[in-house]
Each structure stands twice: as C-alpha cells, then as structure tokens.
C-alpha cells in the first residue's frame, strides 16, 4: 500500500512530463524540423551564452513576481485572470513619478516608482474584488474586462499624454533618461535588483502563507468561504486582501518591466507574463517551493525559443505549446476534485 502510493507519487509527474513532450513533439514533427534540434534550443538555448542567460533572468524576475502573487490568490480560491491588467496598471503608475520628477535622485525615485506600481496594481485588483463582491461578476470575467481596460489606458497614455514628440505610434513612449534605468552588469541586460526583489517576494509570501494566521485564513477562505466565515474569518476582506496582494506584486512586476527591461511604457508592457504566471502557479500548485524552479524553466523555454525562427525557421510559439501541455497533463494526473463530495 505505502509502496504503491510512493510509486504513483513519483510516476505521476513523470507521466505528465512524458505526455507533454510527446504532444509537443507531435506538433514539432508536423513542421518537418528535427524535434531534437528544437528541444536543444528550447530547453538549453537560454543557458548557452551569458547574454541569453541574463535575458532569461530578466524574464524570470517579473514572471516570478506574478506567479508568487498568483499563488496567494490561488490559495484564496480565486482565478485572478486580471493579473495582466494589474501589471499594466503597475507600470503606468510607476511611470508617473519617473516622468514627473526625473531630477530626484534615482534610488529615491525607484522606491517611489515601486510604491506607485504596487499601489496601482493593488488598486486594479481591488476593483476586481469589488466587482465580485458587490456585483457578483466572477473574478475571471471581471479580471478579463479590467485587462482590456488597462491595456486601453496604456494605449491612451502612449498615444495621448505621454506620446512622443513628433509621432503617435503605439510602439511606446520615449525612453527614460539613462540614469533612471536600473544599473546592469557590464554588457549584459541583467539588472541584478530585479531577481533579488523577486526572490525576496517569494520568501515573504511563502512565510505569510504557511506560517501566519493570515495565510491560514486565506487558505480557509479559498477552500470554503461560507464555513470560514462561520468560524470567524472575515472572508470578504481576505478575498480583497489576497487580490490586492497579488495586484501589488503584479504591479511591482510592471514597474520592473519599465525600469529594468523596456525603459519606457509600451502598450504591451505585460507581454503575456501575467498569463504565463498563471500557468506557472497552476503547475506549481501554488506551492511556493515549486514556484522558483517552474518559473526558471518556463522563462528558459521562452528565451530559448527565440532562436527557433532564426536557426530552424519555425515559430517560437512552440515554447507556449510546451508550457501549456505541461500544465494540462500535470492537471490530469492530479487527484479528482470531487473526492470529497458531501456525505452525512
């Protein structure tokens, strides 16, 4: 009995892995390129040169921030599909001090921008919570709607108040002054502050979810809000708090995108990182211990796949296919949702 459960525990993820790769290989074969070549790039390409490694880390940092935030909302039983919008609002809010007071000393300005970004993201997420609480709109659709609105606002800022001197293109605002870019290592695009902040966030959230009463209450609300309420947990408040916490982290990710990656506001500042974060959180089962490895793997796939069109002439979206398939098959090998059906 014990042995067999041990075996299934080990084989299940393995099976999922195999199935995901089988599926992705099928997709690769249909294009006529050698899957091995493709996998070499997708899996290891990100580690092949220092430049790519640093690009991977710069993608992993905001991704980890989002995934960590989402692990909070997942614990609270919410599908925060609005994380993209929260990132965008965080980026917009972070731009405000950066544009208003470019003369303030950079470290102070970054702190200000980080605070603004977190506030922006938290505010945007809070709106989702309010929509759900008072208007009964599921957070999934509220989140999607807010995503559309956020990207609309970003486009408005890019085309309107913050547009470039001479043109009105959706490609973005003017670049920030150089001294406001986060310092990078040498000739790489790696700004060490970004991964440091993300790891810090991971540690704090892990601690909060597993050790604090707040975390326990959040998990209780996630499992059964009615019962949690009966047991004295302020369920509605916890729901808003989890959303706001996730929004704040997503907003921070948006701020990192601005000061460390794009150095400007672009309409697509969230670059699908939020949605990828949802996949990461789903695969890691919102378990903080798994978040880091999964994040690194997914960021590596994405960065590695950039070379696919260049060297193999196939589209880089295969990274997304692999990521999606991994999560899908991992879901399949999990215990049924309905095992704890009502009894009595």
């Amino acid at each position, binding site marked *: 009995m014990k042995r067999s459960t041990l075996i299934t525990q080990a084989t299940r993820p393995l099976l999922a892995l195999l199935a995901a790769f089988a599926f992705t290989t099928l997709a690769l074969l249909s294009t006529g390129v050698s899957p091995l070549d493709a996998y070499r790039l997708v899996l290891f390409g990100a580690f092949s040169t220092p430049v790519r490694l640093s690009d991977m880390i710069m993608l992993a940092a905001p991704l980890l921030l989002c995934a960590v935030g989402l692990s909070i909302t997942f614990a609270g039983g919410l599908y925060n599909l609005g994380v993209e919008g929260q990132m965008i609002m965080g980026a917009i809010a972070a731009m405000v001090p950066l544009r208003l007071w470019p003369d303030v000393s950079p470290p102070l300005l970054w702190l200000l921008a980080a605070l603004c970004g977190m506030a922006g993201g938290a505010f945007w997420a809070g709106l989702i919570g309010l929509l759900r609480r008072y208007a009964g709109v599921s957070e999934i659709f509220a989140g999607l709607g807010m995503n559309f609105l956020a990207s609309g606002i970003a486009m408005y800022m890019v085309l309107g108040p913050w547009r470039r001197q001479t043109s009105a293109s959706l490609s973005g605002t003017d670049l920030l002054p150089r001294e406001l870019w986060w310092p990078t290592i040498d000739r790489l695009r790696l700004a060490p502050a970004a991964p440091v902040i993300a790891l810090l966030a991971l540690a704090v959230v892990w601690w909060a979810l597993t*050790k*604090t*009463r*707040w*975390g*326990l*209450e959040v998990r*209780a609300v996630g*499992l*059964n809000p*009615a*019962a*949690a*309420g*009966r*047991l*004295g*947990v*302020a369920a509605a408040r916890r729901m808003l708090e989890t959303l706001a916490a996730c929004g704040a982290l997503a907003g921070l990710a948006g701020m990192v995108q601005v000061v460390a990656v794009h150095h400007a506001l672009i309409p697509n500042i969230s670059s699908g990182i939020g949605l990828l974060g949802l996949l990461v959180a789903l695969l890691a089962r919102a378990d903080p211990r798994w978040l880091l490895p999964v994040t690194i793997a997914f960021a590596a796939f994405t960065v590695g796949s950039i070379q696919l069109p260049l060297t193999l002439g196939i589209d880089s979206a295969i990274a997304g296919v692999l990521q999606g398939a991994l999560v899908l098959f991992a879901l399949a090998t999990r215990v049924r949702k309905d095992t*704890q059906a*009502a*009894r*009595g």
Partner: protein
Amino acid sequence: MRITVEHLTKRFGSVLANNRLTISFAAGQIHGVLGENGAGKSTLMKLLSGYMQPDEGQILFDGVPSRLCGPADALKAGVGMVHQEPLDVPAFSVLENLLCAAPRGVFSSRRAAQTALLELAERLGFAVDPAARLDQLTIGQRQQIEIMRLLLCGAQVLILDEPTTGITAAQTRALFAALRQIAAEGRTILFVSHKLEEVAELCDTVTVLRNGEVVPPGQLPMPQPQEYLLALMFGDAGASSAVYRPLPAITAPPVWELRQVTVRSGSLQIHDLNHTFAAGRIIGLAGLDGSGQQVLLRLLAGQITPERGQVLVNGRDLTGAGSLAFRQAGIEYLPADRLHDGMIGAFSLTDHFALLQRNGMIVDRRSAEELARQAIADYQIKATPITPIAALSGGNQQRAMLALVPPNARGILAEQPTRGLDVASARAIWGRLQARRDAGCCVVFASPDLDEIMEYSDEVIVCFAGRIGPPMPRALLSSGRLAELIGGVGFEALVEAV
C-alpha cells in the same frame, strides 16, 4: 412484483455496507426497513433501484434474476426509488420535471402528461399545480411529485428512503394514506426509516439491518415490540433515558433581545417581533418547513439585517453589524449542512483550532494540536488531530463542529443539530448541548422532528406562516397540542393571549 435479493454484497473501500444480504419482499405489501445510521439501508435500496451495482450477489424480480446496469434498467423492470432528498430538478416546473427523461412512449404529449398527473393526484389525494416551480414547493410536496412520477412511469415497486425526515405531520398522514392506497392497488412498497412508530403504523413486515447484515436473518411480520426492534437496531445503546429536568432560575442577563424587529427573507416577512432569549435555556423552534424558523435563526446569527427594529446581544445593540460581530459577541451558528457551510473539508481539527486563534500573527500549531487532542478525547471523536474533516463520518463531523464552539460562547444557534444521525449519536450531541446550557449558554435550535423538540427543549417557540409565537415552557406543552399549533390550530389565540 416480488423482489428477492441473494447474497447481495457492496463494499466501499474497507466499509462493508451490505454483507451477503438475502431477503425477499412480497408483492402488494408495505415493507419496513429499519436500521441505525450507516447500517446499509440506503445502499440496499440504491442497489435495488439500479443506482449502484452490487459487488456480488443477485437481484430477482418475481424470481427472475436481473442485472441492473443503471436506474433506467430498474425502472424498466418496474422499480422506482424516491430518494431522501427528492432527486428532481428544482428549476423545472412540475410538468417539465415529469417529462424530463421519461421513458419513451409513456407520455404522448405535454397535455397527456398533465392529464395523467392530475388524475393520479386526485386518486392519491395529493394537491398539485403542474405549472408550479419545484423550488417553490416544500420537500413534502416534491416527494409526492416524485412518487407520482415514478408511478406514471410504470413503477410496480416503490422504494422510499426516509421519506418522513423533512416533512410535516400533516404531510406524513397524507403520504401514508397514499402509500396504503398504492399498496392496495397491488404494488410493492419498501419504506426505509429510523422511526419505529412510523414503521409500526404503516408496515406489514419489517427488516432490520445492522452493520450491513439482516438481523435476525429474514423478515419479521409486524407488529413487533418496540424494545425488541430497538435492541436489534442498536444493541444496548438504544435504551431510552429521557428524564425531565426542572428549569433552574436564571440570573444572567438575556443573550438576545429583539425589539420591534421586522425582517424579510425571500417572500417571508416577520413583523414587529419582540422577544428575549434568556441564558441557560434550550429553546426549540417548531414549525412547518419554511414557517420562519430559519429566518429567525439567521436573524439571531446576524446573517440577515432587519428592515426595522433592533437586535441586542448581551445588551449591546448589534443591529446590522454583520455575522462576524455577532460571532465576536459570543454567538455561534451551527448550520445543518456541516461540510458545506460548517467546516472546511480539507482542514484537520488542528487546522480548525489554529484558525480559531485570535492573537498573534504567527500560527501556534503546537497549542492548536493540543486543543484538537483534547477535543477528540472530550467529544469522543473518531479521528486524529490531522485527519481531514471530510474523512469523518457524519456523527463525528457534528461532534467536531460542536467541539469547535469556543468555551466562552453565549449563544448557540443550531439548525437540525442531529440531522441524519442515529439515536446514539444524537443523544451524545444533545448531552454536549445540555452541558453548554448548564454552563450558561442559550441554545436555540430548529428541528422538523417534534419528538426531538419535546425531548430536549426547555422552552418551545412555534412558528406559523412567518409569525413567531411566544415562548412556552416545555412542561406546559403536550405533543398533541404542539402538533396542533404547528398546523395553525389555536395559534391565533396563543398569540392574542400575550
């Protein structure tokens, strides 16, 4: 149609729900099936109605072995089952529900179905409106509709699983009359119940199940002595010990005070309610389903806000403060659906106690586990501190829920505190509640079971059509009078008198 089962066995994991059962139910009779909780009654019925398939053994209809692969097979063979909670579609009208997935050729058209339904209702003495939505009917009415649906679909054998649990006395009378009529028409009825009196009143034979086996092997003709049946069902645990206890004088301030409260929930409205709920009392709320007991409980729990008036808890005005504030004031609400609204299925007792901790930012697991251990010992819960609540049996879940009531609770509101529990478990639960009462708590509970109300209440409040009667000392009340009041007989005079 005669039903025979031979060596019927059904396992759920390690639980042997039915263990090589061999019985025969003769045609044209009403057969009672008795047994404590978990004895395997429902399992047997579900096997007979094709709802589940046996692991071993066979079922014979009129001596012919038949394999039932699903409810459709059973209905084709003429067996229909009315589940305890009617398995109908609440969002449908009576007629839609009747037509839904009806066997081919039974109803040629909507109109034909309606005519047939009305005809049958008249024959059985039920009142029915084919256009009414099921979720606006009482459980009793829905049960009647299920019975008629099965008969119209050609059931020759009718299985009723605890049909009287959720319905009123009057509805029970109507049901019994109809069942006798159906049996008289030559059909077979299997009647599952915990309640000895009902079986005695209705049934021609009785079968007692215990731990998945028939004791003693075979059927017994009715009547049988009640003590004998109780002993068969429970062994020694079933012996009755109802002792009437005089009320002590109360000095503590009242737990709740309602002042001129008007409250509305759905279509039900309660007007100008003035009531005081004293500490150290058990107050039973009696009434037909949906007469206002639930509204009153939820009002006292702070879950609904009155439109007018004030709700005072321990002398403090908490009108509209929300259920959390009520809880902080020492009010505990125990819902009927334990797993759904009461506790968190995936959490263990330790987790629950940790959740109840109110100070400090960090969870103190050690003290929570200590409390869980103590609760398990005190309440005789069959579990470890880290067993998920969902894996506990119903009775143990109820005990766990009670154990989680903080020691300083001032008021306990319980909705059907012994729903689905057998006599022994129910008695244990009541022992706990009485201890709470003796410690100065006010316990308010609602139950559809009049015997329970009569046995355990210190005071009884009757609800009728959204009106709340005055509290009456239990000692001044007889079962007959209570039944009348619930039905509205003399209710006006009672209210006027105050």
